[in-house]
């Protein structure tokens, strides 16, 4: 019997993951992380999510604990998120949470407490290669695939991880929850960033933490064509919210200069680039060069590129990747590594 710790968020995916771990005959303990102490869509301190997780654990007959990793979350996820916006970068809070919280703090704690593996409800699969190394692979449910946010896992981490719902579609997960009588069976999927409420949004969250600077919008010739309320909130590729005067065709933000509080806009063609620089490359097992598939956002389509001399050269011109965004490298449907766009 394998002793496993299931990270239960209170959602249907991780609840079913826990159920499957039980069915697998593992010795299962559920854990919910208390990460954010402020407002969220599920109330202060996410109490209702913790309750949902606890009741799911009760229904499965497993023990359930709450770990408070709030300080780490503030330090490694929230503060960098705010910092990134303040300097005009696009943060990836879910990736940072996986990197520092779930697959570092939680995994280490699980090991220290004598658990062999942790189980999560991510929609992704783990595949073993001929050379015995592991890779994260896309989920059976393409639309729900979360392999992108798991690119930072190394061999040791992947070998300590179990992803039981990766082979299931979301509908199958809900059916399973329903057949087990779990009341989270119909709970809506969580959206976006867990520490930002739908009601108040990102702008309000950031306004309480950093001063936001109004900026001007210029075209490729440098003539002013509009304004933005906050330069820190503009993302590369953005089209709306820039109060653009006139214009026949849609224009997109293709450059953001925080220093001068200036957004440069242009048409689709001007947004396209042939290559993308990156930093902090990471490889799941070994370094790969040459042709690979690159995905530049959580639900984006992977595109072919050549990795040469530390530079990604796109096979076909690619829309500009926002600085700070994660680039995840795939071979077919398997994650082989990733990096952060400069």
């Amino acid at each position, binding site marked *: 019997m394998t002793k496993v710790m299931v990270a239960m968020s209170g959602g249907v995916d991780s609840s079913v993951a826990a159920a499957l771990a039980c069915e697998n005959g593992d010795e299962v303990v559920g854990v*919910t992380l208390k990460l954010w102490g402020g407002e969220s869509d599920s109330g202060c*301190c996410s*109490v209702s999510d*913790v309750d949902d997780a606890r009741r799911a654990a009760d229904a499965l007959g497993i023990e359930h*604990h709450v770990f*408070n990793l*709030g*300080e780490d979350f503030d330090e490694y996820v929230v503060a960098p998120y705010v910092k990134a916006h303040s300097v005009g970068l696009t943060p990836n809070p879910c990736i940072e949470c996986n990197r520092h919280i779930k697959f570092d703090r939680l995994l280490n704690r699980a090991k*220290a*407490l004598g658990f062999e593996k942790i189980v999560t409800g991510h929609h992704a699969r783990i595949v073993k290669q001929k050379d015995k190394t592991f890779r994260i692979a896309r989920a059976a449910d393409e639309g729900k695939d979360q392999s992108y946010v798991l690119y930072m896992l190394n061999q040791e981490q992947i070998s300590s991880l179990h992803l039981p719902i990766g082979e299931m579609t979301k509908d199958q997960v809900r059916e399973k929850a329903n057949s087990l009588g779990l009341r989270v069976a119909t709970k809506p999927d969580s959206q976006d960033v867990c520490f930002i409420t739908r009601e108040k949004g990102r702008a309000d969250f950031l306004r309480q933490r950093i001063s936001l600077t109004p900026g001007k919008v210029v075209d490729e010739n440098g003539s002013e064509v509009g304004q933005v309320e906050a330069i820190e909130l503009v993302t590369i590729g953005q089209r709306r919210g820039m109060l653009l005067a006139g214009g026949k065709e849609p224009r997109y933000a293709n450059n953001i200069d925080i220093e001068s509080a200036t957004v440069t806009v242009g048409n689709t063609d001007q947004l396209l680039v042939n290559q993308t620089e990156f930093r902090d490359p990471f490889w799941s097992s070994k370094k790969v060069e040459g042709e690979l598939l690159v995905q530049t956002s959580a639900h984006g389509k992977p595109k072919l590129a050549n990795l040469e001399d530390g530079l990604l050269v796109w096979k076909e011109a690619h829309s500009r990747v926002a600085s700070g965004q994660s680039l995840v490298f795939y071979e077919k449907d398997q994650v082989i590594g990733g990096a952060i766009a400069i």
Partner: protein
Amino acid sequence: MDIYLDHAASTPVREEVIQAMMPWLTEHPGNPSGSHRLAREARRAIDDARDHLALLVGAEPGNVIFTSGGTESDNLAIDGILGAKGGQALCSATEHPAVLEPVRESGGIVAPTDDTGRVNLESLANLLDSFADISIVSVMMANNETGVINDINTIADLISEKTPETMIHTDAVQATSWLDIAETSKKAHLISLTGHKFGGPKGAGALILRNGVNLAPVIRGGGQERERRSGTQNVPAIVGLGEAARLMQVERLKINERVTRLRDKLENGLIDKISGVSRTLPKGTPRTPGIAHLCFKKIENEALLFLLEDKGIYASAASSCASGAQEASHVLQAMGVDLKTAGGSIRFSLGQTTTEEEIDNALIAVPSAVEQLREFEK
């Protein structure tokens, strides 16, 4: 074997208490506010309990207000005095949230404590000098996390000398098992206690007043408890609370002596066996016998509690928030303990039912759990 070392969170209900309560769950339907015989029976039962509490605290039975527990008693003390007299409330930084929250919400003053978590008399005196309208000062008798004891009578002397009109409230919830409340709360005007911290049931507590204290009700309705706390009394629980108070009067000293010895054995044993363990309170600090509050170097209390639970030992760290997660302790913060040290602190709390065998087992299990965690860290 389950080793329950969380008596400061809640004590097991004593057998005598259960026996006293049972008839009031199974036989007697009466509402104590009614007028017929069955109602009068219920009335008599809660008035007998009132007598026991009055005796325990050295108060008039008519000044015992039954509540749903410590939180309600504390809220009623603060809001009730502010409601009746106006002015500002002041409390110490290490109070239970049941006091801190109403004080903060009313715009009151939170006084700093010294490094043992006891109210600092000098800063209290300064605050009394700088604010003219403090109508109530609330200082807990014994702290729920560390067990440190405030000398309420000395604090009361200081307050009466400076501002004689100020009411003094003490939350004696954690002291009832261990101290002679009648004596230690002699100069306080309002005293909170709750049954489940000394062998009684959950859901029954009391706010006890000294003669002449007026307070505005918080819960209004049928005017029960002499118009000070409306709502049909929880008869079985109040009967249980009364019985627990009666037992405490008789057995307190004996329990104290035994628990002090077991607590010292646990503390000394853990400090001997495990490196980097220290008492959170400096030696010689006045404290209740039931709590061994220890700091474990390079240990995360959440992880240690998890392993201890695996070994059948139930203890706690600081206080839990609504989600069930361990929160950083405001008590240790007020004492000036840094976050890292506080994050390695554990409260083992003993009580009337704690046995020598349990302590012996804890002295084996705790070191082995600490060793497992430290081994992993290497």
